[in-house]
Every structure is written in C-alpha cells, then in structure tokens.
C-alpha cells in the first residue's frame, strides 16, 4: 500500500477522478445545512476536507439486522450524502466488503496497524454479554473481545442505530443474550450515539463529516447524541402541531380525522418525548416521515422503546415517563415555526462566537 510517498489528500484524489473543489463545497453546504451550522462555514469546511486524507473507518457489525447499513447505502439515487463514501476508506464492513474469511480479518488488522490511534470505529448491533459473550461471535472471537480489541487504537467510536447505542431489540425483555450498548463496555474513548431504528442517513453522514472536517465529534447531550440532530423532539417540529393544539385527534386509522391529517396522539404517537430529526430532515431525501405518512412515532431513537408499552396506546398510558413530564413535553417545548428557527439561529451565533 505504501509506496514511500505521502498518501494523497482528498482534494488531490478526487481531482484525479475528475471531481472539482466545487463538489466539496456542495457536499459541505449540505452537511452544514443539516447540522444547522452557519452556511458561511461551508467554504471553511470544504478547505479542511480537501486537505484531509481518506479517513480509515472500521465498521463492526454485531447483533444487528443490517438495517442501519441499508439505510446508509440504499438511496435510490446518489445523494450528496453518499459522497461520504469518497471521503472515507471503509477498511472493514461485512456487508460491503469484497474480501471474506481470513483475508477480511487480516485486512482489518492491517488497517488498524497502519492507522493506529486515528481510525474511526463504527458499530452497529448490540453486544451480548451473557455467558462470556458466546451468543455472537465472528471468526471465533466474541463480539465483546472484538470491540475491546479494535477500540484500543480508535480515535473515536460511533454507535450507529439503537442497538449499538442502547441495546436495541436484542435487549428487549427478557434479554436472553445479555445485550449491551457500546457505552456500557467502552469507557476510555469518545463514543457518540446515533440512535434510530434505523437512523436517518443524513444524520450518520453529518456526524462522520463533522469528524473529518473538524477533527472531533459534534457536541453531544447527556445520552451521547449529537445535539444538532437530537436536540428537538418530534413534537417540537411536527407539522401536525396545530391540530394537536386545537384538540383535533384521529381516533382510528381510517376515520375522517386520519384522512384529514389530524394529530396522531390518540393512536399512540410518542412524538412529545422522542428526540430525532425525523420531522425536519425526514426520510428518503426529505420526502416524508412516519407521522406525515399517517402513523404515529414509535420512539425508535429512544432507549428501551420496545419495552415501554404498545405503539398504539396513547403516551400517557405507557411507560414513557410521568404524566406531568409528558404533559409538559407535549404542551411546552419550542413551538413550531418561528420559535424553532430562532433556536437554531441562537445555536448558530453560539458556534460563530466559539469559533
């Protein structure tokens, strides 16, 4: 791999492949926009990105359904976000790699050695702990041992999907495998959670791009989630909020209220207590999200969402929190529209001030 000369920068490599610096600018404009960074940051990010080298990424898949990988890779047309694959060197990934067997494992070890201390580790799937972790093994090694071993030389870890972030479906009662999250195991490296079942692809890309251009993970909340994407609840930004305020609720999935797009609270929507970017970034390139398509939010980006009661029973009847807490989240929070925009602007000037 090394021919004794310094590896190409991304700018050099992409230009060799016919991509101009304008491509960088466009990509960075999209990422800056999705993270509510000031638009004037896009040229700065583009410069930084062009000077960077391909970021080595090792993707570890544990007890997962591969939905997170599918979410990231299965857009029906190349998106701006899919350019991220031109900026990273995906040195190990079960679903996407060509190598198999010992070759694949050796490739991983070689990448780790070459980029020790600098590679990003992306994890999807939970890690079983019961009985020494035997319930999920790859190449004769338990997921637990693999995670610990690979994390040693990592610059940072990204837990993609609710399974890696909080234990996910495998952790559902009675949790037969003792499924655990990455943060339960790795304590000495920066770990960021990108929950969702699956996460929105633009969110995944935004976190990786932030790392590439700024050399660090974005600002996180108490649950290790990037605030840029998980700062608001679904309810905060839901376009059906006016119906909620006027008390217009759909009571069945086929009644007049449902057909008129009324609030889905009574049909089990967990929007008021769920943090994600679904209501703004949406899915399938800003096309729609569950509520817009007529189904309440199931809370797939929150811990233990699978064990908190029916998806179809109203919020107050499940195990999502106290009645008072829920009432507060539903009624207060930021209001739809200008209020939220002001919040995002305040965040922007904060970023400019911090430099």
């Amino acid at each position, binding site marked *: 791999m090394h021919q004794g000369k310094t590896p190409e920068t991304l700018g050099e490599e992409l230009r060799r492949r016919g*991509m101009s610096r*304008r491509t960088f*600018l466009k990509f960075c404009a999209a990422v800056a*926009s999705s993270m509510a960074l000031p*638009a004037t940051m896009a040229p700065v990010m583009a410069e930084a990105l062009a000077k960077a080298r391909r970021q080595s990424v090792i993707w570890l898949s544990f007890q997962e359904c591969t939905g997170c990988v599918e979410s990231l890779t299965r857009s029906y047309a*190349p998106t*701006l976000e899919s350019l991220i694959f031109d900026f990273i060197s995906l040195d190990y990934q079960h679903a996407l790699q060509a190598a198999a067997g010992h070759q694949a494992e050796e490739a991983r070890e070689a990448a780790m050695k070459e980029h020790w201390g600098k590679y990003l580790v992306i994890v999807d799937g939970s890690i079983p702990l019961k009985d020494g972790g035997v319930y999920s093994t790859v190449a004769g090694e338990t997921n637990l041992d693999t995670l610990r071993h690979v994390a040693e030389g990592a610059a940072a870890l990204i837990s993609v999907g609710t399974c890696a972030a909080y234990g996910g479906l495998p952790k559902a009662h009675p949790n037969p495998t003792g499924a655990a999250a990455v943060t339960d195991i790795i304590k000495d490296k920066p770990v960021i959670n990108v929950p969702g079942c699956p996460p929105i692809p633009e969110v995944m890309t935004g976190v990786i791009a932030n790392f590439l251009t700024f050399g660090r993970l974005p600002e996180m909340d108490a649950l290790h989630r990037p605030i840029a994407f998980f700062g608001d609840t679904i309810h905060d930004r839901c376009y059906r909020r*006016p119906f909620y305020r006027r008390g217009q609720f759909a009571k069945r999935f086929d009644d007049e209220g449902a057909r008129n797009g009324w609030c889905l609270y009574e049909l089990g929507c967990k929007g008021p207590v769920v943090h994600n970017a679904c209501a703004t970034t949406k899915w399938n390139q800003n096309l729609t999200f569950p509520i817009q398509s007529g189904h309440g939010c199931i809370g797939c980006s929150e811990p233990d969402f699978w064990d908190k009661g029916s998806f179809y029973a109203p919020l107050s009847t499940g195990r999502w929190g106290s009645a008072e807490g829920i009432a507060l989240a539903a009624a207060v929070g930021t209001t739809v*529209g200008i209020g939220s925009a002001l919040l995002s602007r305040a965040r922007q000037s904060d970023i400019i001030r911090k430099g």
Partner: protein
Amino acid sequence: MSGLDGIPVRIEAPEFDGEDVLTGMADALMREIHAHLVNLHERGESHTIDLKGLPLTEADRRQLREALGRGEVSMTVEAAGPTEVYETAYAGVWWIDYQNLLGSTALTHIEIARVPAIAPTHPEDIADALQRLGEALNDREPQTDNPPTD
C-alpha cells in the same frame, strides 16, 4: 436580574394547517438581505442565508422569489448534480439552488456577495488544469493545412 422575567410571554406560531399561507417570513428575509447588502456595499463583507432551516411555507418561498426577481446572470454548475445559480434583480444578491443527481432541490442559499462561493475556480483546480493543458500541448501534432516542406 431585572423584572423582565416577570413579564408573561406567549409565542404565537403561525398556523400551517396544510394550507399554503403567507407567514410574513419573506418580508423578514428581505429586510435581512437588505442589512447584509449594506455590509457588502460598505465593507465588502459577504454573507449566506440557508433557507432550509427556516420555516418557510411554499407561499413564502414564492413570494420571496418574486420579490427578489431575476437579473443578468444565470449559470448551472455540474458538480455532484446540477446547481442553478442566478443573480436576482438586486445586484449582489444571488439565489443558489443546489440539486441532487435527480434534479430535486437538496438545499437553497441566498448569498449576498460579489460572486457566489461556488462560482470562482479554485486555485487547486487551476493548477491541475495547467498541468493537463501542458501535457495536451506536448502531445499535440501541429494542426495546419500546410505542413512544412522539407
């Protein structure tokens, strides 16, 4: 702290209702654009407004676009999909529509600048072009209908 905290405040958000309503955002943005144009004129400072994070209805967007109008310059940049750029009727105020490879809008910027950031050619690209042109000239046979006689 002053007694300002004791004043009750209620934020009125506009009703979206599924109907296409004018919320007044277009007016607010025109005033913001004006302020940035002052900076451009007096201090040469550029600024970019990202429309994506703003609660603009379709009606607001149309009103804004109509109010800004179109000017002399129009260009398409083909880089990871098309980007449509045009100068509005107000010189120095540009409308930039970044599209993905299917032609649908990924994001929209309003740039207040002498020229939008995506337009000028980057020095690195020029260096690359220089090298390629040099190589192409070296490879080229003289192109003429009258070859030199020996």
